[in-house]
């Protein structure tokens, strides 16, 4: 039952679908994707050309699904994909791809490299070439309930702290609440401000909400490592929790991949449509804003800029909402040169931040973000993804840049009009 090469090749054959076939056959080898990838621009190493990271998958496609490839394979002319080769590709498929999708925006023929990397990781994991750190995170997710090994008591402890700080009771397992609020491990451990912010905002908006003891964790290690069987288990927990409590909407926290995993991949993984909606917290807040349920006073003094999380802008379409919200609390705001859909990744998405051996490369790639920030001269960096936030904080610290990183939700919560 253990993983091996045959299983990996089988997984490659299984994931290759019409989009992948058309992507590979329409690639014109122009190399524009390289210029769009921060791992290439910051290292100048051509092995980081996005489409090149997919080479073993391309060969399986050619050998198994094209007429010439089949003939070549029959005559023994083609080079089979080997374990050694996949091991060589491991750092390319995992360490140097944050699935940020910037290359897909640059591709003149519209190839979605992120889609393919996501699928390729299925074969990498099934053949035993997934990074040990991601295997660990996936194991903790399935066996403990969270990639960082957090159990319910830790969540309850945080709820208690927040209750004490804000004086607002944090609801747990309240059936019939309108919103089910999820968190990422990062928020439970590093950023308790998030839960406090949500509590304050929900109170002001007058909405009912709840946490769920079986489904508090939003992150999905199965998506990052590339094992749909594991991703399905993790999504199923949230579906079960949401349906048990009969909530109308599940709110994905300030986390990029948790949002795309739950909203876009989830229904396909569980094999049916949800009975509830999935929204990112920024979509909910912008909804409150336009409905007049979000009232703020005062403005931030410092010059602010915003880091668009890749999964939100490029794969989620959450583009205008953060700027609408920022306008409420920031008069002094500047966008980076490549912002919005062409924003540069923090360098730690798609599981990269969890891979320890990828750290030197990640810090090198961070130079892109660094120069972007320096150009703006911003004094505070706002974002809407806990993973981006921790990666940005680490990068800024490494390069001795004194720029605090703040989550947008908590910044909004800080300016809520008191009273009433």
């Amino acid at each position, binding site marked *: *039952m*253990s*993983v091996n090469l045959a*299983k990996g090749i*089988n*997984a490659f*054959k*299984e994931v*290759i*679908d019409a989009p992948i076939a058309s992507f590979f056959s329409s690639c014109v080898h122009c190399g524009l994707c390289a210029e769009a990838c921060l791992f290439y621009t910051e290292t100048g190493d051509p092995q980081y050309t996005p489409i090149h990271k997919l080479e073993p998958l391309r060969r399986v496609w050619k050998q*198994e*699904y094209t*007429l010439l490839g*089949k003939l070549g394979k029959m005559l023994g002319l083609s080079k089979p994909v080997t374990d050694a080769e996949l091991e060589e590709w491991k750092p390319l498929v995992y360490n140097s791809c944050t699935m940020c999708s910037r290359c897909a925006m640059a591709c003149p023929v519209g190839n979605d490299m992120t889609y393919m990397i996501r699928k390729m990781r299925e074969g990498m*994991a*099934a053949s*035993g070439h*997934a990074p*040990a750190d991601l*295997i660990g995170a*996936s*194991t903790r997710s*399935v*066996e403990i309930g969270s990639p960082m090994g957090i159990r319910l008591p830790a969540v309850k402890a945080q709820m208690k702290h927040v209750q004490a700080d804000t004086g607002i009771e944090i609801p747990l397992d309240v059936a019939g609440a309108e919103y089910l609020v999820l968190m990422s491990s990062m928020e439970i451990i590093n950023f308790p401000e998030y839960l406090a912010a949500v509590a304050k905002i929900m109170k002001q908006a007058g909405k009912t909400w709840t946490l769920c003891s079986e489904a508090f964790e939003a992150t999905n290690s199965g998506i990052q*490592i590339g*094992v749909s*069987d*594991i991703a399905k288990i993790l999504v199923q927990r949230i579906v079960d929790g949401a349906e048990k409590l009969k909530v109308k909407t599940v709110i994905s926290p300030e986390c990029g991949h948790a949002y795309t995993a739950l909203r876009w991949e989830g229904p396909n993984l569980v094999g049916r449509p949800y009975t509830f909606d999935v929204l990112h917290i920024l979509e909910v807040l912008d909804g409150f804003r336009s409905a007049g349920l979000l009232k703020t006073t005062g403005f931030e003094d410092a010059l602010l800029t915003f880091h668009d999380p890749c999964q939100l802008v490029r794969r989620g379409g959450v583009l205008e909402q953060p700027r609408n919200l920022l306008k409420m609390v920031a008069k002094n705001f500047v966008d980076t040169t490549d912002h919005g859909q062409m924003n540069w990744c923090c360098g730690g998405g798609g599981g990269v931040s969890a891979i320890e051996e990828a750290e030197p490369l990640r810090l090198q790639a961070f130079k892109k973000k660094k120069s972007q920030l320096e150009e703006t001269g911003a004094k505070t960096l706002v974002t809407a993804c806990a993973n981006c936030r921790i990666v940005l904080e680490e990068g800024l610290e490494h390069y001795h840049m004194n720029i605090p990183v703040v989550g947008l939700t908590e910044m909004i919560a800080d300016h809520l009009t008191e009273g009433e």
Partner: protein
Amino acid sequence: MKKTQKTEILPGTVGEGLAQRGVTRREFLQYCTSLAALLALPPAMASVMAEAISKARRQSVIWLSFQECTGCTESITRSHSPTLENLIFDMISLDYHHTLQAASGEAAEHARLQSMKDNEGKYLLIVDGSIPMGNPGYSVIAGISNHDMLVETAKGAAAIVAVGTCATYGGIPMADPNPTGAVSVSDIVKDKPIINVPGCPPIPVVMTGVLAHFLTFGGIPELDALGRPKSFYGETIHDRCYRRPFYDQGKFAETFDDEAARNGWCLFKLGCKGPVTHNACATTKWNDGTSFPIESGHGCIGCSEPKFWDAGPFYKALSMPVSATTAMLGASVAAGAAAGVAITWHNRSTKAAAKASHETVTVQDLAREEK
């Protein structure tokens, strides 16, 4: 190798003839430069050509006319004396030509036989008109059938230049139902180099250009698959047409008197055969560079292509497919679709097999691989 100063004039050469006629070397060099350009040769070749031509003995040429209309001769004589095209005529010794020679009757035939004897293996044979194979009596000169005269004269020729579409591809005499059984020169002569200079008629400067090439290099120019010199027939009328931008923009005249026609838009829809016709009309033009048919408002009829007379109506647009094409297209589509279905079926079964053999991956599996 540099001979910039006066070239010595040898008696009995083209150079001598030119000098006698008061043509300066400068004029001659200018002529050779334009000729080199026409032949798509590098500019440096102009002086080489001048050298070669002025030193050349006048080339003996025998011109035979068979089933033709004399239009080719009319064309080549329209070399606008005193323009430089005339010079070419002075470079050759035209020993036999029905229309142009002074001699007649026995004397004329004697001139042909004498030239063949004197210049055995060196003379150039020019033929215009097709050769009737149905009945030798259809076209006879001095009691000799066209076929016999061609075979007899070709025997000692250095090379043959077939001018006009009749001599090159059968032309109008061969058009359906071909009552005389007309054939082209290349259908009869197989053992001599043949240069085809088609057109109904060919452009004068193209004919003289080919002769000049022969005189300069002593061989035949590079030919395309239909035996035509590539320097003149390498591109289509369409590719060089000044109305091409309208074609690219989809601006077409629908009738010969509509606004579009007056605006000079593309004549494709009115049956212009420019896209499939290889000739130099659009670049060299006619009547001393005045214009060419499309410039006068009429589509190209494709006269330099084989069987142009039978290639559908002159006023029917090219894109209308003929039945053979349709049948072939249908068969190709069917074959392509069948191959597509087969490949798709095979790919689907490959993918289905992969799905069927999927074993659920658990975290325990992943962990086991961890060393």
